[in-house]
């Protein structure tokens, strides 16, 4: 009787384990997709920022706010926060504001370490140079960013498959060991 109950419990545990691990795999795959979407949003931000700087000649706080108004979700929040901090005249440099706001944003972001490093480095280049150099430095960033995006896009189907399969397989493996 007790033996039968133990077996049922082990089977139920194994099902939960396989389900949990599979879900973990799916979520990881989702994170990969989320990263690509986020990268695409950031790329759009810098493209618009470039336009605001080059054609409208807006100063950085206004340009960031203007781009922020056209974005959605957490990226909009990020840009509005940065613009707000720049406009409130707290006396902080752009680099400090940029780093502090991005670090807050990264806590909920799907970007990887390299993306974060690249994004943070823009704090040293935005606003400082003349218009031509400013657009050139945004172009350079976009080029690197797009290369990264392309790589990521190519790898995405494989990564998603691996993440999902690994989740299920590792769940099954653990279940077998348990039973």
């Amino acid at each position: 009787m007790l033996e039968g109950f133990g077996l049922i419990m082990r089977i139920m545990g194994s099902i939960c384990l396989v389900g949990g691990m599979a879900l973990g795999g799916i979520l990881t795959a989702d994170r990969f997709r989320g990263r690509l979407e986020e990268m695409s949003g950031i790329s759009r931000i810098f493209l618009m920022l470039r336009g605001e700087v080059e054609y409208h000649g807006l100063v950085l706080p206004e340009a960031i706010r203007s781009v922020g108004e056209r974005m959605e979700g957490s990226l909009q929040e990020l840009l509005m926060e940065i613009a707000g901090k720049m406009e409130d005249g707290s006396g902080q440099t752009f680099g400090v504001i940029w780093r502090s706001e991005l670090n807050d944003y990264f806590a909920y972001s799907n970007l990887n370490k390299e993306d974060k490093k690249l994004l943070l480095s823009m704090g040293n280049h935005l606003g400082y140079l003349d218009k031509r150099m400013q657009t050139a430095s945004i172009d350079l960033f976009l080029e690197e960013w797009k290369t990264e995006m392309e790589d990521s896009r190519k790898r995405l189907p494989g990564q998603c498959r691996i993440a999902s399969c690994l989740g299920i397989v590792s769940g099954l493996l653990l279940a077998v060991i348990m039973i």
Partner: protein
Amino acid sequence: MDVKKEAFMKCLGSTVRKIMEGIQVDFCGIQEIRMRVHTPLFIRYRGREYAVTETGGLTGDIGTAYRITRQDIKEAVELISNYSMYAYEEELRQGYITIAGGHRIGMAGKIIMDGRHIKTMRYISFLNIRLSHEVKGCATDVLPYLLDEKSRIYHTMIISPPGCGKTTLLRDMIRQLSNGSCEREGVTVGVADERSEIGACYKGEPQNDLGIRTDVLDGCPKAQGMMMLIRTMAPQVIAVDEIGNREDLEAMEYAINCGCRLIATVHGDSFQDIQDKPVLKSMVEKQLFDRFVLLNNRKKPGCVSSIMDGLGKVIWQQEGRRSCWKDLD
């Protein structure tokens, strides 16, 4: 906090801002702040220069003064340019930026040349923050001498050496003419403000009170600005600062022929001094102007030393201190 003071504080980095917030003097008396890398922080207060200590005290002993660091300058430049040096390329070429509140920040550093032209400025290491203070009413004593029997302003030229208050006087004349008074109707005034000194426009909005009937063309070359104003805004009076070249002369002649009254300022020590300059001499000979107002700062900035008619005949001369601006006392 006063708007002008707040705007000024916003252009300072955190350390210098803290020092200036702790300073125990009347803000209206501060004329300029000098920030030079690795040297003491200086302010010019009511005509005298003081070094400033870390706690905001004024001192004559530069050994105890706060020394400006490169970081202070870097922060200030970033804040002055609104984090956007690229948006101030033209201003940097001229060597100054006008910020909100009408304050003007002169900069010096390493000049980058593009052929014969100045391309930009790098390694900015010296800042001169000139605080804008309006002196409302400073033209009240002068204005009656500059109006004809129909209370219309004569074509007037204000002559003064740099720093004697000609722009301040011009600004108040514009304000008073534009607003009008019980005895005099207000008139439409067009201001061609090439260097943003008269209106101190920030994002197109004058930071100084130029009156209710004043239109400002900000940052536009004077000669082109005068033509544009005539064509677009139909001003009864046109005001320009620091005229001097042949294009200005032609534009002024055009304005006068269009029936506009003209008020202009020019650098000079005396009436004779302007007659020694070919273009200005030509203006005098053609009798473009009906009144010349001479300023000096022998007693203090803003003293009217004499007023002359179009032929150079003195119609009023300084006696004592009556004509000096009361607000600067």
